[in-house]
Each structure stands twice: as structure tokens, then as C-alpha cells.
């Protein structure tokens, strides 16, 4: 019987480079409170958010993706043509098909394998899991993972559940081979019984079949999401620490999805992280940018001098699905 060749990849992987692109406009709470009959104080108290970044009307998910990708490739110190796979995590690219990733690849001059994934606010960590596996399996040498969202295209300004949290941005990393382990095992999963907790208000078929149906926007059952994220994600984070063979004391930074400062603070408490761990809170200025939020928060911690290349970070994404993924990584 004829046997087939198989590929074998690198023993270890790491994040080689990081790039981000934030929406051009910092939108303060005051600009959003009238349609939701609220106040700056209430938004700050319930979310910790002071401003969120939102993109110009003409700036697309692909524009944000391209900018973040170029910065990530430059930071990685490789040439774009060394990228052989592009994974774009987004829930706000406004086409069912084609996906956005092949277009981003083309803009970068690439004919690499390219596809989109839909894992909402966990999408960046899902992308890291795939890229890590591809490089170790020999399926790819260098993978560009992008989390990009233009959430502002899918908000109802009068919605009090989620609209005022959301921002527009992209974060990108390049994953490639490493001499030492740079990405710990991914702990991930889903709970589809909570699929309705964060959702699109109506399906495209509803829009087609009923002229009264409003343009679909995002909605969440806020308190239920808070409960799930704050209390069910802590064991996932602890499992990722254990799977990586480290202890909470070894972690320099905790960089969770930037959903809500109240969630982040409760997670820190539930995980039992020591005070020595710095916590990513870019949400205060950038808002909740879904798949982009973890790379954004990472970039912010680096820019503020709170973490350095080589530090260990625990990152965890969680969101609509419900889906979640966590891993310990060595920061680029």
C-alpha cells in the first residue's frame, strides 16, 4: 500500500510581532448618552469606559486589518511574503462571502491561505490556537492572525444593553517558529445553551421577509453575560495557567477580552491573581472592540511600559456563542 508523505513543523511557536489600528475618533460618553437616556457617570460606573474608539464612515474592517497587519509584520521583522496563512476573526465584516481575509492578503501582496473565523470576542484567542497548531504541524510557517471589528456599523444608538460599550479597531500578530515554547496550550470551549445572551437582533431572512424589521444590530443580556464571564471564565483561566505548567505568580500580565471593567475586576478576584500581575484595561479609552481587544490591550501595556518582550501573559477571550479560549503566551 502506498504511504503518503506528511509534514512536520516547528517544535515550538511564539508571537513574533504585534500591530494595532484603532478607530480614528475617541468618542466620549457624553456623545452617546442622549439616545439611551443615561449619563457619563452611569456608563463609567457600569462599564469603566470613558471613551471608545470609532472609525470614520469610510474606514472599513479591511482598512483597520491591513494597517494592523502591516505593523505586526514589521514588528515581527519578516517580509510579508513569508506569511503563508492569514486568519481574520471578525463578526462585523458586512459580507457573508467572500471573506475578508483573502482581500487583506491581496492588499499585502499575498496569495497565502486566507479565511475568516467567527468566534466573536474569543476570536483572537481562537486564531492563536489555530496558528500555533498550524506551525507545529507544518501546515504553515508564519501565520498572520487578525482580530478586526467595526462594531459601530452594527449598533442601535438607543440600545441600552451594549451599544455604548462598542468600538472599532484591529489587532494583528504574526505566529511563527520559536527555539523555546512561546504559546502555552489553549483551553477552549463553548456553551451554545447561552447563544441568545449576546446576539444579532434579527436574521437576514427576517429583514428580507418582513419590511418592518429593523437593520440588525447587537444586543446582550448584560447581567447574565456579566455572571457567566465573571464567574465561569475564572476556572478556564486557571486551567490555562496549569496547562502551561506555570503558576499565577509567574504571570506578568493578565490580558482578558476588554468586555467591561466590572467583569475584568471580578475575574481578577475569582482567579486569585497576585497584586504583582498587571491587568490590561485598555477598555477605559478604547471601549469593547471584540476580537481586537486583547491585542489592543497588549499594545497599550507595552506602550505604557508595564510589560516587556519576553514577559508571560495570560490572555482569555470570551463572548457571543457562547465561546471562550485562553492561553499563556510569551509577549513579543
Amino acid at each position, binding site marked *: 500500500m502506498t504511504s503518503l508523505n506528511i509534514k512536520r513543523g516547528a517544535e515550538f511557536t511564539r508571537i513574533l510581532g504585534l500591530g494595532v489600528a484603532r478607530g480614528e475618533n475617541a468618542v466620549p460618553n457624553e456623545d452617546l448618552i442622549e439616545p439611551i437616556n443615561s449619563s457619563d457617570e452611569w456608563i463609567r*460606573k*457600569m462599564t469603566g469606559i470613558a471613551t471608545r474608539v470609532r472609525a470614520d464612515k469610510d474606514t472599513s474592517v479591511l482598512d483597520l486589518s491591513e494597517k494592523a497587519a502591516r505593523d505586526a509584520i514589521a514588528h515581527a521583522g519578516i517580509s510579508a511574503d513569508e506569511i503563508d496563512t492569514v486568519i481574520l476573526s471578525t463578526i462585523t465584516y458586512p459580507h457573508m462571502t467572500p471573506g475578508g481575509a483573502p482581500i487583506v492578503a491581496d492588499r499585502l501582496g499575498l496569495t497565502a491561505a486566507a479565511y475568516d473565523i467567527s468566534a466573536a470576542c474569543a476570536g483572537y484567542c481562537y486564531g492563536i490556537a489555530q496558528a500555533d497548531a498550524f506551525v507545529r504541524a507544518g501546515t504553515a510557517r508564519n501565520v498572520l492572525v487578525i482580530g478586526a471589528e467595526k462594531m459601530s456599523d452594527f449598533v442601535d444608538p438607543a440600545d441600552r444593553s451594549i451599544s455604548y460599550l462598542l468600538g472599532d479597531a484591529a489587532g494583528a500578530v504574526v505566529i511563527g517558529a520559536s527555539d523555546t515554547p512561546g504559546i502555552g496550550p489553549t483551553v477552549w470551549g463553548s456553551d451554545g445553551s447561552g447563544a441568545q445572551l449576546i446576539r444579532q437582533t434579527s436574521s437576514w431572512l427576517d429583514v428580507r421577509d418582513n419590511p418592518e424589521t429593523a437593520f440588525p444590530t447587537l444586543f446582550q*443580556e448584560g*447581567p*447574565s453575560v*456579566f*455572571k457567566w464571564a465573571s*464567574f465561569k471564565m475564572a476556572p478556564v483561566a486557571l486551567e490555562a495557567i496549569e496547562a502551561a505548567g506555570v503558576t499565577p505568580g509567574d504571570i506578568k500580565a493578565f490580558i482578558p477580552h476588554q468586555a467591561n471593567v466590572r467583569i475584568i475586576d*471580578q475575574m481578577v478576584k475569582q482567579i486569585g491573581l497576585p497584586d504583582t500581575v498587571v491587568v490590561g484595561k485598555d477598555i477605559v479609552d478604547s471601549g469593547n472592540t471584540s476580537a481586537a481587544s486583547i491585542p489592543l490591550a497588549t499594545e497599550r501595556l507595552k506602550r505604557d511600559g508595564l510589560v516587556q518582550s519576553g514577559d508571560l501573559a495570560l490572555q482569555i477571550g470570551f463572548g457571543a456563542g457562547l465561546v471562550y479560549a485562553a492561553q499563556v503566551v510569551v509577549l513579543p
Partner: protein
Amino acid sequence: MADTNEILAGLAEIVAEETGLDAAEVTAEKSFTDDLDIDSLSMMTIVTLAEEKFDVRIPDEEVKNLTTVGDAVTFIEGAQK
């Protein structure tokens, strides 16, 4: 199984921890929102910690019916059985 007084005392401890109020102020007739100034997210924290403490399940859709501390005590007492 905890009795009514034990549930009230345990719940008061949880509320005190979450809000910084004195546990003695957390009495059965107090409204979570109007008297104790507990918002929807803090309420979920209190509910979750109560679930763990009393080994009961308090469904999310039930939380809106728990207006007073006494309502929560009654629900927890019933859920234990």
C-alpha cells in the same frame, strides 16, 4: 440545610462584602435597588455567591423577582428543598 435566619445572616454577609455596607443594615424588608443601592451587576455577584454558599440554583430570569432581601431569603429557602 440552612434555616431562614441562617440564610438571612449569610446573605447579609455577602451583601456587606459586595457593597461595603454593615451586615446589620441588610434586613429582610430592604429593597436591593432602592434601599441598598445595588445595581444589576452587583446583584448578579450576590446571586452567584449565594448560589455557592447555599448550594442552590437561582435562574437569571428569577433575579428580577427578588426585590427585597426577604424575597431572596424565601427563594433560597425554597430552592434548598
